[in-house]
């Protein structure tokens, strides 16, 4: 089975978030970058599927050269080769077109992504890629098993779960508990040194959206602790100071 895993290069979840250039650009200063946590689940499941039934895993990232350490990590975890589309990932449709261009003639049986990126949380790329390739796209996928040409998946839906069967190939946006994150081991890191990482030029498509401004949520105010025996004080504060009741 040939699996394509699309990974993002995103700030670590504990990073302090700030913006520059008149609040239009994310400030990368001092930020640690990681594989998108949902993409990491997708990759972990791909490694498990490969362990079960053989095949190969290609990881793909649309990003500039700075994302290569993140791609190397994916190779250390167990991907066989990697492609980087050398472009700044401006918007979801632009990214989806890049992915679709790679996938179109790639002969992949499965295209795994995260349910959403954790930097801009669009949750759109998988749907767009499915549409561009004319194949099904499902998300968020919580379990995924392959039986011949068919996949059995389960999906989280409002207030419950949905069980589905669908033919290969398709696109899946993954989330836990599809697999447990894999920690690269030293042998994996060593072998990642020599695994191929191909850099490709982007398609001619231009990004169609433009960020006008980012805004951080308002800073948290001071916390007041109220003694559990002093309910009157709590009601008074909620009513007169916080003005929420």
């Amino acid at each position: 089975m040939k699996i394509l895993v699309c990974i993002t290069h995103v700030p670590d979840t504990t990073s302090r978030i700030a913006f520059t250039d008149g609040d239009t650009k994310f400030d990368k200063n001092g930020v640690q970058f990681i594989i998108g946590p949902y993409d990491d689940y997708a990759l972990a499941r791909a490694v498990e599927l490969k362990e079960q039934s053989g095949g190969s895993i290609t990881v793909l990232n649309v990003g500039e050269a700075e994302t290569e350490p993140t791609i190397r990590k994916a190779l250390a975890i167990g991907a066989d080769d990697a492609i980087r589309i050398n472009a700044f990932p401006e918007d979801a449709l632009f990214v989806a077109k890049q992915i679709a261009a790679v996938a179109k003639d790639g002969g992949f049986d499965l295209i795994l992504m995260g349910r959403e990126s954790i930097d801009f949380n669009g949750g759109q790329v998988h749907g767009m890629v499915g549409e561009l390739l004319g194949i099904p796209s499902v998300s968020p996928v919580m379990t995924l098993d392959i039986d011949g040409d068919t996949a059995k998946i389960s999906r989280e839906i409002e207030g419950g779960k949905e069980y589905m069967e669908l033919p290969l190939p398709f696109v899946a946006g993954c989330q836990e508990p599809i697999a447990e994150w894999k920690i690269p081991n030293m042998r994996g890191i060593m072998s990642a040194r020599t695994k191929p990482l191909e850099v490709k030029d982007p398609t001619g498509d231009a990004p169609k959206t433009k960020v006008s401004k980012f805004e951080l949520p308002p800073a948290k105010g001071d916390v007041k602790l109220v003694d559990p025996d002093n309910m009157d004080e709590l009601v008074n504060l909620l009513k007169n100071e916080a003005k929420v009741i």
Partner: protein
Amino acid sequence: MSAEKRNFVDEFESPDFYALDDLLTEEHKLIRSSVRDFVKKEITPYIEDWAEKNHFPEEIVKKFGEVGAFGPTIPTEYGGGGLDYTSYGLIMQEVERGDSGMRSTASVQGSLVMYPIYAYGSEEQKKKYLPKLASGEMLGCFGLTEPNHGSNPSGMETHFKDKGDHYLLNGAKMWISNSPYADVAVVWAKNEEGRIHGLIVERGMEGFSTPETHGKWSLRASCTGELVFSDVKVPKENLLPGKSGLGAPMGCLDKARYGIAWGAIGAAMDCYDSAKRYSLERVQFGKPIGAFQLVQKKLSEMLTEITKAQLLNWKLGKMMDEGKATTSQISMAKRNSVEVALNIAREARQIHGGMGITGEYPMMRHMMNLESVVTYEGTHDIHLLILGAEITGIPAFK
């Protein structure tokens, strides 16, 4: 045994005050973060419980093998990692940030068992033992110290006689890390001419036993014991042919001491990190205690010492890669790191006040562990004598 899992706040930040990460490659950083994630998942949540119960988690051996913590510098053809010494140092730093006992298990296996087999062993010995030691299928131990000979191993009494088709080994070793669980032991013993050789002794050989040493207040999650040999018949092919004399075990100690230099700073970083966080959270006299000058002095000195040690370790790693590091340079780094770590553990414990003596925080465990680390692999004072002999040309051991 099922261990109690504790959920610690683990927002550990590796102090890098002098941007020394610039001296590392992307691969080094990936190695560090991978081992850090491993320790966070497999060691940190359980270690206080293991230490409290004096329990060696046998299952960690396979896990260390899987992640690649055993023999990272041994070539891949023998199952090792084929990595450089900086990588090895970073692995030890992260494992010891978790616990010195866990690091001891890994450094004994890598530097004191795999290394002598790799450097002094025959091709058959390498093929037979190294891949299984690397994967954690086998656990090894290193027997040098004896009841009557610690700092002065050349006085060892353990000896073997050539009996034609085998050697007959007699004697006893003491303070041997991993021994009660070990499948193989690299044992240093004298032949009939009094020359020291290494022998590979396997569990199950008649007359060989490994009683556990009880009552340790230090390295409680690492298992320590004796090696007792009474008329053990050791096959001749189990003698390490490549090197003999005291220099052979000393060559192994150089590698292990190098790993300790990095490891102890891992323990120091863990204590510093906890102290830094606590000093900002704990309020006394209406302010976080980190606002007081005396607490700031402690934190400033900790960070200074960690930074100096990081530089020393990094440069030593480069010299190890080039094959230029000397025993006395390694002594300096081992001794410095352990002293720094012990001082930081004590100061960090004080910053935590009464809370600092409990297992809610790691300092007491690190501090007690470090009392072994300051003693084994050459005591603190023996390293001074090694440096003193280097400086003056006059050995003061005897």
